[in-house]
């Protein structure tokens, strides 16, 4: 039974990363209409920025949680201003190819300097150790990742669904020309939205660093599953991405316990089934 709970916890942790990453992808797709294949590379950059901050600047994990998303977010905004903005109105394929190319370049550069093996990033002292819950042993850091990711996901959902800024974002997703004619600087809002989505990826990277180590290909391994999560949840759906991210993490964890052979493919089998039954995803709307 302990093994089941342990797999559930692993599933929830993976689900946290899926949710944070797919949330960023959903925000970016909703606003920019771009399938951001660079997301995995930007997640990896978040982990590397945390590593550099600690090893070069002596800046600890807590500051890295704040600074890495800002630094990588700014990098993302530069990418949007210099490259992605020119793809407005073009077929999705162009954005996909461009961001895929960016991902390959970024990963290639990091691989060139740091190789493929992982660099260690220590769990902060305050989150070391674990708790015996009776039915299982809970490593505190892993519990923190789940809770913090959930809080960040819900805060992002609140920002987009319940605030005036979110209303601007949702309206601009539908009709950017009219929103701009109301006096809102939509191009700037698009840049900031890309920065926000990228920042969420970088935050996931920082959270992941103490668990998975810091590796140039850490994002490449994850991004395909995250895209499956986004497709299942419904492209562009904020709450759909959060729920599906956590749910698929748990389903993957349970599969590891009950039928380990299928644990790497269960997400894709579910994606196929969802696409057959509801092509817009579980919570997506038809275009």
């Amino acid at each position, binding site marked *: 039974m302990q093994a089941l709970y342990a797999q559930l916890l692993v599933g929830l942790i993976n689900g946290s990363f899926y949710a944070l990453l797919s949330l960023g992808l959903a925000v970016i797709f909703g606003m920019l209409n771009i399938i951001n294949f660079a997301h995995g590379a930007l997640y990896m950059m978040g982990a590397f920025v945390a590593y550099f901050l600690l090893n070069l600047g002596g800046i600890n994990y807590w500051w890295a949680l704040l600074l890495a998303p800002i630094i990588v977010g700014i990098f993302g905004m530069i990418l949007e201003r210099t490259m992605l903005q020119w793809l407005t109105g073009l077929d999705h394929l162009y954005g996909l190819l461009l961001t895929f190319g960016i991902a390959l370049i970024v990963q290639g550069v990091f691989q060139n300097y740091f190789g493929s093996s992982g660099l260690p990033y220590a769990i902060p002292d305050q989150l070391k150790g674990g708790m015996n819950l009776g039915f299982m042993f809970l490593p505190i850091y892993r519990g923190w990742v789940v809770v913090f990711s959930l809080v960040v996901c819900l805060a992002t959902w609140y920002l987009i669904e319940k605030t*005036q800024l979110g*209303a*601007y974002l*949702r*309206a601009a*997703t*539908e*009709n950017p*020309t*009219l*929103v*701009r*004619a*109301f*006096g*809102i*600087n*939509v191009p700037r809002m698009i840049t900031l939205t890309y920065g926000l989505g990228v920042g969420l990826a970088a935050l996931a990277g920082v959270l992941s660093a103490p668990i998975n180590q810091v590796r140039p290909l850490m994002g490449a391994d994850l991004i395909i599953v995250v895209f499956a999560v986004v497709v299942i949840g419904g492209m562009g759906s904020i709450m759909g991405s959060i729920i599906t991210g956590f749910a698929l993490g748990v389903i993957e964890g349970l599969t590891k316990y009950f039928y380990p052979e299928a644990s790497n493919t269960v997400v894709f089998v579910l994606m196929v089934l969802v696409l057959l039954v509801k092509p817009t995803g579980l919570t997506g709307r038809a275009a």
Partner: protein
Amino acid sequence: MPDTAIAEAPAKAATGGNILQVRNLEAWYGESHILHGINFDVNAGEVVTLLGRNGAGKTTTLKSIMGIIGKRAGSVKFNNQEIIRATSDKIARMGIAFCPEERGIFASLDVRENLMLPPVVREGGLPLDQIFDLFPNLKERLNSQGTKLSGGEQQMLAIARILRTGASFLMLDEPTEGLAPVIIQQIGHTIARLKREGFTILLVEQNFRFASTVADRYYVVEHGKIIDGFSNSELAANMDKLHAYLGV
């Protein structure tokens, strides 16, 4: 054709000073040349109507003034400031508000969010209680999804939301299109009231019977040019010409 006369001497001011001056305005959709040198003026406090058949260039004129047509040339001066090269967000912040023909109600926003969406660009916008006084239906439907409203209610919402912003120059594109007569009457009363409260309105209409109840002056648009213009007092004398222009 009085085209040249209008280009050189647009219809006289009816009320305040000149607020909008459009000269040789040209616009393109891709390779299609839509406006071929539009000239007209709007004076402060007036309701000016652009009349014309479908595809004449009326909506494109409004969109060109608002800066939401990609390629345009000529001169558009608002309060003596050239805005032909300004982006639409900057134009809106100068005090011009646009209510599009398709109403532009956002499906992902409820009525309250739709109403509060345009930012206040300057002081003098109508407070919500006055807006609800003008459009009482909206108050009852604040939590409904914007696109669940009836056509008339959506039109009211589209007008209401730009009244909040403080913009004093309103451009309304076919506000009566597809609406029941009783709603058209209500829109007419609203426009008349807005005029009394000092708003300047540039209206695009095909329904000149409706326009005649609110407009001070008319310009007739055909093939991307202004081909005629007259004041409301000259309407009766120009009726035959107008019927010919509009094909009614």
